[in-house]
């Protein structure tokens, strides 16, 4: 009955941490009040030489307290509602999951059986089950607000590398999260941390120059107080949130042992994941020039990690120390190659993966304070409104083609006219598209792609062909055109089987020099757009990106690939494991931000990186998202 003690212990620890959250909020209010009070007194003493030295305006403390609380708690509430509306199935589909309703082979059948068993053991309703086809690492996550609406997603790697008992342990761990209400707690804490970041954002608004470029002294001082208090609160909030998350992982482990009444299942899974992590790190140490080494070396420090160390988890499960366990593929029949999802993935508005609770730690998509996003003016808002109502296939096609046509090119415009012949509303739609700013065009394109992706394959291919004709009409295909077209083909084209070079494991050791070559090619191609389209700065950016992986060695000069080579390189990079692709996108972005004035990307660079992220099915980093407007939820959810 050790697991009952462990459950009790972790529940107590969670309560203590939640009490610390309350303390943090109180401290934040006190600090803001104290600092503003000192400012006021200091200011009046200096400026007015006022004998009424200790005078404060009426409702001084009340106002400050209310501002802080409204931002934190109000922000928390708004964000919670937003996270809730996403729904677990949405998250799983976003992550590339296919719902398992009617299993295709014995291993899938087995997963469904195990989920049924665990639903029995835990007394919970049976969640929907998703399979992450393209993930070869052992992992799983649960998502959803309530036990009735939750989903469990398991990677293909887990199906292939775990025995039945171990898979049961893995699924039991996710049931533990559902049973203990961790998904809800996780979302509320995330929202709370977001609320804390709003205080910081409010400070920025006061601190930064207004539209006329004027700053006021009190604004700067008061803003600085909010910025300082807000960022301290945010960091502390993140640390507390991570600490809570670690306790909940231990609790879910203990619950998994309770449900299965067996230590070996979960223990084996943890040891195999441990082995997987160790191998990845060993590969990095052995071959310093391997891809992404620099990225993974700066793993988050312990107090920000959301999962306890695997050694500790294994020790708790078994009650003694056991080492990692090799995880060869156990696939019974090799003929059963991983099936690919047959539907195109839904567009990712933001990265909902952060709202799911994975089994093992994955790279954190967002680790910095959110920055304000651009706002739409009235014209654009109206245009968005009108375009949001476009639903007919012909109209959607016209809007899509107008979005990707080169602005100002007469020939492309004529080609567009040919393609939309017979559509009476075409010109009106095109006028609306023209009103969209650069910050709104790509979000729109993604929404449209999501909508058109539901059409039959034949219609989708038709759209891709039309796009090619429009783009080639002016006799040249610019790099951004090619990216647009690749994105269209990626989202609308036929689901292709994974390319043969796609790694079948998640280990960096398997990443060959040739894969690195293809990464270099793709980067070289992007360097024509990033950071500003100039040859010289592009080369510098390429060097900065590639230096991270070819450490110590000399980076060869970029050679610009031709169209076939780009498509080929893209196919290889798309085949990289899911944990690596976002890291690559981040590396591109970080180098581009460093090369851009004021940390602000040029429009073409932002577009190129966003499209590249879309092509790699990678979540959009917040530093990139802030270059774009956020479409109203009703539109981006694609209804």
């Amino acid at each position, binding site marked *: 009955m050790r697991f009952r003690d462990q459950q009790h212990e972790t529940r107590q620890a969670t309560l203590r941490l939640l009490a610390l959250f309350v303390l943090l909020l109180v401290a934040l209010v006190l600090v803001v009040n104290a600092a503003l009070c000192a400012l006021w007194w200091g200011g009046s003493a200096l400026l007015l030489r006022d004998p009424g030295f200790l005078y404060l305006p009426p409702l001084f403390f009340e106002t400050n307290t209310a501002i802080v609380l409204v931002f934190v708690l109000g922000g928390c509430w708004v964000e919670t509602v937003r996270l809730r509306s996403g729904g677990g199935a949405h998250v799983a589909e976003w992550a590339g999951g296919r719902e398992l309703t009617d299993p295709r082979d*014995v291993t899938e*059948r*087995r997963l469904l*059986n*195990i989920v*049924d*068993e*665990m639903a*029995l*053991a835990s*007394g919970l309703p049976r969640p929907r089950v998703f399979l992450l086809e393209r993930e070869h690492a052992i992992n799983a996550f649960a998502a959803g607000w309530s036990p009735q609406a939750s989903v469990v997603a398991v990677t293909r790697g887990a199906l292939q590398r775990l025995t*039945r008992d171990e898979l*049961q342990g893995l699924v039991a761990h996710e049931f533990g999260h559902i049973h203990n209400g961790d998904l809800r707690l996780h979302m509320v804490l995330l929202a709370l941390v977001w609320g804390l970041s709003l205080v910081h954002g409010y400070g920025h608004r006061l601190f930064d120059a207004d539209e006329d470029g004027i700053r006021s002294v009190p604004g700067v001082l008061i803003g600085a107080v909010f910025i300082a208090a807000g960022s301290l609160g945010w960091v502390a909030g993140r640390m507390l949130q991570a600490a809570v998350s670690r306790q909940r992982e231990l609790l879910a482990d203990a619950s998994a042992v309770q*449900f299965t*009444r067996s230590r070996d299942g979960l223990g084996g899974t943890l040891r195999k994941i441990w082995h997987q992590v160790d191998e990845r790190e060993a590969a990095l140490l052995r071959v310093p020039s391997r891809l992404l080494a620099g990225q993974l070396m700066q793993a988050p420090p312990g107090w920000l990690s959301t999962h306890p160390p695997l050694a500790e988890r294994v020790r708790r499960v078994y009650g003694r120390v056991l080492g990692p366990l090799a995880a060869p593929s156990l696939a*019974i029949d090799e003929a059963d190659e991983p099936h690919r999802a047959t539907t195109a993935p839904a567009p990712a508005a933001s990265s909902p993966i952060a709202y799911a609770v994975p089994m093992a730690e994955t790279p954190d998509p967002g680790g910095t304070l959110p920055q304000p996003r651009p706002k739409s003016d009235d014209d654009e808002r109206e245009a968005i409104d009108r375009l949001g109502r476009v639903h007919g296939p012909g109209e959607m096609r016209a809007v899509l083609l107008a979005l990707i046509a080169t602005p100002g090119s007469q020939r492309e415009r004529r080609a567009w006219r040919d393609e939309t012949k017979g559509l009476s509303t075409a010109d009106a739609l095109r006028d609306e598209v023209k009103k969209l700013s650069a910050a709104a065009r790509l979000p729109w394109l993604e929404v449209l792609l999501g909508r058109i992706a539901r059409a039959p394959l034949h219609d989708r291919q038709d759209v891709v062909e039309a796009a090619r004709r429009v783009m080639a009409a002016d006799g040249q295909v610019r790099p951004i055109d090619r990216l647009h077209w690749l994105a269209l083909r990626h989202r609308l084209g036929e689901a292709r089987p994974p390319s043969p070079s796609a790694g079948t494991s998640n280990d960096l050791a398997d990443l060959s020099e040739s894969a690195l070559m293809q990464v270099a090619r793709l980067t070289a191609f992007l360097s024509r757009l990033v950071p500003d389209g100039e040859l010289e700065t592009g080369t510098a950016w390429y060097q900065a990106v590639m230096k991270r992986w070819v450490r110590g060695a000399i980076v060869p000069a970029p050679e610009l690939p031709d169209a076939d080579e780009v498509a080929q390189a893209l196919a290889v990079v798309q085949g990289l494991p899911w944990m690596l692709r976002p890291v690559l996108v981040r590396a591109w972005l970080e180098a581009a931000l460093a090369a851009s004035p004021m940390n602000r990307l040029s429009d073409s660079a932002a577009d190129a990186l966003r499209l590249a992220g879309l092509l790699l099915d990678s979540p959009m980093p917040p530093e990139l998202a802030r270059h774009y407007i956020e479409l109203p939820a009703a539109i981006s959810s694609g209804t």
Partner: protein
Amino acid sequence: MSTPQIVACIVLAVLVFWAVGAYNRLVRLRNVIGNAFAQIDVQLKRRYDLIPNLVEVARKYVAHERETLEAVAAARNQAKAAADLARSRPGAAGPVTSLAMAEGVLGSAMGRLMALVEAYPELKADQSLRELSEELTSTENKVAFSRQLFNDAAYDYNVAAQQFPTRLLAALFGFREAAMLQSTTSEAERAAVRVQL
């Protein structure tokens, strides 16, 4: 109303609220037990249905091992008959004992059948055998887990019904203590009929 009256009203209201809440909680917990018990029955039936299919598939490859195959079929029929008897006379001690014995015989017969499967690679590789044994494993697990759920639910219910002050309410409305299933989740018993491929 005077102050004492108001106080009395409030105390009464709190008491009624508590009583309704506690009563509903006990009913809910008792229903979980009933549901868990129904699950055990469902899964046991399913298991008896699966075993003949497994024997049929095995017969295709190892018809000459008639002795083992027939032992499994006979043990299964006996266990099913014992289970039907136990179901028709719930609470009686005799049928439960004979069911436990029949289950023991079935378990060892299944163990021999699985050893046979191990010895014949072409049988082990048979697609429908693999599917059937996966189903059987899952059903065995579900039996074990619903027994476990039954005991967990009975434990929760008993704790709730025996604690003061709910105890008074439970006595008043006749919530009797629930019995636990004995020796069902032991590793030995689960392992006895384990299908491992």
